[in-house]
């Protein structure tokens, strides 16, 4: 057996050792999990934090509404948030997912209703207010509904229109 032939198994052994070492080091350094973070399923409940004022309450209301609408449409909350940013992005979204205006309107209203449910469950909206708010939200035009999702503080500004005398009661239950 020649000297070169003798070195064959050694060469293969070194190649295996180096390859395994590289793969092992990269695995240990987190190579298997270096991927984008997974976003939460919008159909799952997202716990509300204790709101610190009207803005935070409005924001959590918006997020709940986004979750609800996204769940209805089968997309992520994040995709829907970007889609509702402008009329152009909304059009791109409806074309891409082949959603018509009626479907979008239905989903957004469903989202707003879920936000009311979540707010009620979190104890920041009393059942006394939640019921008339639901009736109002079921009927509002889609553009106005999108506006509410984008900036839920407008909901509170517009509560007088929506709820009439209930506005005063809402202010009483806000933290």
């Amino acid at each position, binding site marked *: 057996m020649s*000297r*070169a*032939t003798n*070195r*064959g*198994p*050694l*060469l*293969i052994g*070194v*190649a*295996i050792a*180096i*390859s*395994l070492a*590289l*793969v092992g080091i*990269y*695995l240990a*350094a*987190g*190579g*298997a999990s*270096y*991927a*984008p*973070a*997974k*976003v*939460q399923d919008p159909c799952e409940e997202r716990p509300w934090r204790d709101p610190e004022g009207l*803005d935070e309450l*409005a*924001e959590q209301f*918006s*997020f709940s509404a986004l979750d609800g609408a996204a769940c209805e449409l089968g997309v*992520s*909350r*994040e*995709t829907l*948030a*970007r*889609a509702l*940013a*402008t009329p152009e*992005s909304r059009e*791109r979204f409806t074309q891409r997912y082949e959603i018509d205006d009626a479907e979008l309107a239905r989903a957004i209203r469903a989202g707003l209703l879920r936000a009311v449910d979540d707010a009620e469950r979190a104890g920041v909206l009393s059942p006394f207010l939640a019921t008339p708010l639901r009736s109002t939200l079921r009927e509002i035009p889609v553009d106005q509904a999108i506006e509410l999702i*984008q*900036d839920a*503080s407008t909901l509170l500004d517009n509560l007088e229109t929506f709820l009439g005398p209930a506005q005063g009661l809402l202010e009483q239950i806000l933290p």
Partner: protein
Amino acid sequence: MSSQRSRLVSLAVAVGLVLADSSIVVLALPEIYRDLDTSVAGVTWVLVSFNLVMALAAVPAAHLARRIGPGRAAAVGLAVFAGAGLACGLASELSTLIAARCVQALGGALAVTAALELLPATVGSERRAVAIWATAGATGAALGPALGGLMTELVSWQSIFLIQAPLAIAAGVPILAVARHEAATGIVAAELRSTGRPHLLANLALAMVSAAIAAALFLLVLLLIEGWRLTPIGAAIVVSAMPLAALFGARLGPGMGSARARAAAGAILVSGGLGGLALLPKAEVVLTLPPQLLVGVGLALVLSALTETALAGRAPQAIHGGWTISARHAGVAIGLLALTPLFTADIAQQRNDAIDAGTAVVLDSKVSPLLKLELSQRIDDRLAGERGRVPTIGSAFEPLPEDPEDRAEVLVLREELQDQLDRAATHAFSPSFGLGALIGLLALVPIGLARRVEL
């Protein structure tokens, strides 16, 4: 320089030049993609067409070379290669470019197989001729992407092809003497002999390893340019680690073990390197270097050992060399065709996941709701302009808010979103690199079964 030496240099350059062409456009593909306004799948055919035609034409070209004389065949092949190179450089449509690439491959196949017939008479030993031919080919293939990247950045993607014409002509000049001698005497290099069967296992292993190496080169370049947004010249510098390692690997000659052992060790190193690329723990260029070193050393070991095995004791060399060229390029073409749909689908999915993850970071941040809205809108606009590629997201955060607290928060957001995009771009390539590693490991089966060469 003696005529023998100048002929040796020109033959080595011709082989290197032609085989570099199987990979030289890799770094130019993003530029061609944008310039000719095509799709990722479409632009891949600039690479696939050349390799496919080389695979199909190599053996018939070798037969032709033996019929008309290798000197004449090499001269004609280089002339066709040069002319088609000019046509590639002047192409303004993808279909023209692909057609010219096919013609280029025909000329290249003729030149490369004829070169193998001419080399033994030039260097005085068949074994040495095979070693030089295999090394020139491996070096060309490994250097191709880096050279292509440099040309693309410094001049244009067209220059990659235009520069090949004078180089091919220059390489053909010393061969003309042989061609003239053949024409004058009517003598071809060797009498027509029975060609015998090609070494199936060695050629099968060559095809599999070539598919894995194509994955390493093609995907790494795309990751660097399209995923991590390096310039072609930056990517060229990074991927030059592979040919440098290949030059080192080429020095590990027969003294390091039998051909089968070197082939096995090379295939393992190529797979190990690809495994490393599949498991990159961060989007950092430096982390691609160790895997590249493994792939580079591995490719030099395995390609030369398998070529040696495929040609050992077989005659005529041009025909069996043709089989090795055919196997290598078929492997590259099949590798590209198999991997392209996989990673294009992955990159689209990962991009969407990254954008969602980034938007979640924005939504859950402490910036004001109105600023969140504005950022979401800007991110969406930025994405709309990217035609499905992994976007650079920095400009979506400009102008930065004037309020110092908001500005600090937005800067954190920008970093987090870019991190998500880097993760997505890197992760999108993992399955393809992983598949390449698996193909490289599977090549151990035919290598192990090739009993003709002792371990």
